């Protein structure tokens, strides 16, 4: 089955996810779709799978134009997609989970059906030690991902799309997956692997297509040429707008302001292991990395929301503990999901701005306390509309972000932890927030800045590190960091391998 995508365009609001992409998929071929966060790879494949409707463009299957209106239509065409998020039900057994998606089987038998048997067969190849009677919640996250894969494989798709297939797999599991993918290709199927890891590309792909900022920027059959791939992925630094960023002039004290030693934590499926860094007052630590590698959890641990399982966190010689409000009041935290985690949506903007200080208010204070300071904050951070009394939940995403930043920075913190602070903001607003953050750093705060974009970090940070699979690579001094090295960290390639393939 030959599949062709022609000039696929998709925008979400003001963000252009796919800017006219052409792609051809041939039978018997494994194509790796490589790129950073927000390069547009997932969106493109979701369009192909019918999960998302593109704004314009066409799909051709065996040179016939097709309309893919929904995943069901896609499945009917023989296209299958395995998503990153697993939708298995923990309490049910593996077998039952496979049966859930399978088409109608006789009433009395819960799992006897050809599709289920096939899925089980595939699962046996991918994960031989897995007992189909075990409950899905007892599986490791890697095994759950393989379960998802087996579900889709059971329907024998002719074109298989895998979204970040090895993100949760152990090495042996990943090797089995690659072998399986190659077997499928040999059998005449097409496979598309969406990935940000170079090893996936090298091990399993026949052809690699690199996307950046919604467009295809590189395509070749040289799947092992890591240097070229990294260059294509990260590009030359986009002409950085030279801004009025404060020059780093203030001498730093030798003592560390914030440091972490061997911090490990777990929450849900996220994990961080053995994180170490040391920041002096006024320094900026930029943490890059593809989302989902543990950055969000790290931010929560640093902010004092999640208790670390082990390790030590210090702020100016005091050990940070979850139960010490005084120390914690010196930490500012902008979460990755401010609407859900950082604001009280049905309470007013005024209350939200003062939320962390409310326990210190006088007992009989009316809710209009502190209006002047609040109004000033709105002005300073350009939060619109300038209405202190409206519920915070009615603000747009960008303004809500600004509100949260305003609240956090208004307390003269000694440590600032921000997680994707400029996500969803237009250029001017992003610039503004950046200036505020850097001003605070200039005034002596330590800033831990987790970002989805590399360029701002390279420009402003003093130290750079990368979160990869829960571990912190680095930090190293930003001045001596190279794009190649950071790219390598982000994609899981070791230094030696990088040097060897150059």
């Amino acid at each position, binding site marked *: 089955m030959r599949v062709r995508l022609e000039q696929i365009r998709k925008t979400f609001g003001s963000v252009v996810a796919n800017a006219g992409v052409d792609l051809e998929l041939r039978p018997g071929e494994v194509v790796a779709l490589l790129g950073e966060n927000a390069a547009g790879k997932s969106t493109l494949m979701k369009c192909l799978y019918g999960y998302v409707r593109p704004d314009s463009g066409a799909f051709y299957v065996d040179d016939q134009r097709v309309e893919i209106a929904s995943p069901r239509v896609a499945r009917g065409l023989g296209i299958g997609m395995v998503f990153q998020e697993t939708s298995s039900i923990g309490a049910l057994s593996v077998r039952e989970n496979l049966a859930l998606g399978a088409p109608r089987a006789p009433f009395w038998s819960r799992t006897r059906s050809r599709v289920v048997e096939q899925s089980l067969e595939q699962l046996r190849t991918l994960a031989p030690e897995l007992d189909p009677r075990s409950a899905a919640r007892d599986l490791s996250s890697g095994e759950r991902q393989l379960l998802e894969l087996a579900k889709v494989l059971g329907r024998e798709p002719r074109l298989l799309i895998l979204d970040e297939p090895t993100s949760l797999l152990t090495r042996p599991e990943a090797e089995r997956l690659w072998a399986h993918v190659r077997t499928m290709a040999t059998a005449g199927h097409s496979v598309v692997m969406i990935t940000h890891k170079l090893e996936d590309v090298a091990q399993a792909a026949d052809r690699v297509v690199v996307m950046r900022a919604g467009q295809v920027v590189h395509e070749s059959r040289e799947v092992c040429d890591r240097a070229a791939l990294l260059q294509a992925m990260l590009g030359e630094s986009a002409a950085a707008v030279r801004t009025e960023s404060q020059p780093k002039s203030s001498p730093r004290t030798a003592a560390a302001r914030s440091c972490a030693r061997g911090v490990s934590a777990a929450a849900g499926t996220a994990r961080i292991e053995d994180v170490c860094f040391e920041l002096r007052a006024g320094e900026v630590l930029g943490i890059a990395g593809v989302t989902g590698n543990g950055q969000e959890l790290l931010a929560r641990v640093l902010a004092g*929301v999640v208790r670390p399982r082990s390790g030590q966190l210090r702020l100016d010689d005091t050990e940070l503990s979850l139960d010490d409000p005084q120390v914690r009041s010196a930490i500012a935290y902008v979460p990755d999901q401010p609407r859900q985690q*950082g604001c009280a*949506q*049905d*309470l007013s903007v005024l*209350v939200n701005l003062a*939320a*962390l200080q409310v*326990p210190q208010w006088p*007992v009989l204070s009316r809710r209009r306390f502190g209006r002047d300071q609040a109004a000033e904050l709105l002005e300073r951070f350009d939060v619109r509309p300038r209405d202190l009394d409206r519920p915070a939940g009615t603000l747009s995403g960008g303004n809500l972000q600004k509100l949260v930043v305003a609240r956090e920075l208004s307390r003269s913190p000694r440590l600032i932890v921000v997680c994707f602070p400029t996500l969803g903001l237009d250029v001017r607003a992003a610039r503004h927030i950046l200036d505020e953050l850097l001003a605070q750093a200039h005034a002596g705060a330590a800033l831990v800045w987790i970002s989805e974009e590399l360029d701002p970090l390279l420009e402003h940070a003093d130290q750079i590190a990368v979160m990869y699979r829960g571990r912190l690579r680095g930090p190293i001094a930003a001045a001596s960091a190279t794009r190649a090295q950071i790219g390598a960290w982000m994609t899981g390639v070791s230094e030696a391998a990088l040097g060897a393939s150059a």
Partner: protein
Amino acid sequence: MRVQLTASGLGVRAVAAPPKQRRTFPRLRSRALNTSATTAIIFAAFSSAFFWAIGQSPIRLFAALYDGVLGSGFAFSETLVKAAPILLCSLATALPARVGLISVGGEGQLAIGAIGGTALVLSAGDRLGWLTLPAMLLSAALAGAAYGAVPGLLRAQLRVNETISTLLLNYIAAPCVDYLVYGRWKDPDSLGWPSTIAFPDAARLPTYFDTRIHLGLFLGLFAVLAAWFFATRTRSGLILDLLRSSPELMQRAGVSWARRTVVLLALGGACAGIAGIAEASVIEGRLQSGVGAGAGYSGFLVAFLARGRLLAILPCAWIVASLAAAGDNLQLSAGLPSSIVYVLQGFLFAAALIAQHRSAEAAA
């Protein structure tokens, strides 16, 4: 507030929408009226259909309802008498709701409070003189508070869902009353329907205006107003709002959700406890089985009708009490069993739930 129980090992996942819709938009004042009007219309529709189905004329029955509530001075005062325990018990639900907890424990806390108050009366006898009354009220409040603290601790420390635990505790409290009333506290002269000895005069709450309106009503009014003031005009009230809306934020501010959970449930229990002893002391004049007779669940209904707005509890309690009072009238005028009033209460509840959903939909 989602009920996070999940089946087979961890609980049952209930698809629960937030029971109290918090609104701070000024223009929502008209929306509140809108919802009330919708509730009234749906209630009227349900009740009329029901009356018609049982072969009664809806109009005659609505007239009887009116009569039972506003037909005479006595009817009016009796409605207020019925409203008193409902008012107090509604706080047993409304106070914990400030942090998003759903408690139905008013019924059990009322019974335990009645036990506490009676214990004091029976042991003190005549010795305390005028102190009997305040002491009785205090012990009822403390007993109710203790019984309210239990589900609070279970929730805070063991994460036991408070709705289920308060429900089960209700069913534990009622037989406790029976145990005492049939047993060691039994008045030897009460043969047919066991109860304690009649309360001495010093232990009877004063009544006013030549009616049965008693101190409990005013205590209830005071409690609601105090709660309202506390919730809307003080720092602690604001903290509670923040806790309900964004627990993570308050965690960073060092606010303890666990402590407030227990305190609010205990305070609610204290109010219900006072309702219990008031019923025993004034209305029944003794402690007997079935004290309070459903005021706890009516209180829960009132708290839901009021949608978390404490001042709205006052009219809502009166409305629910009116239904109960009218039920008596229906019995007299139409020969219907007095329990028919539960059908009307249920209709009112269902109507409120439907109206609340429609108004939430309209806002979205």
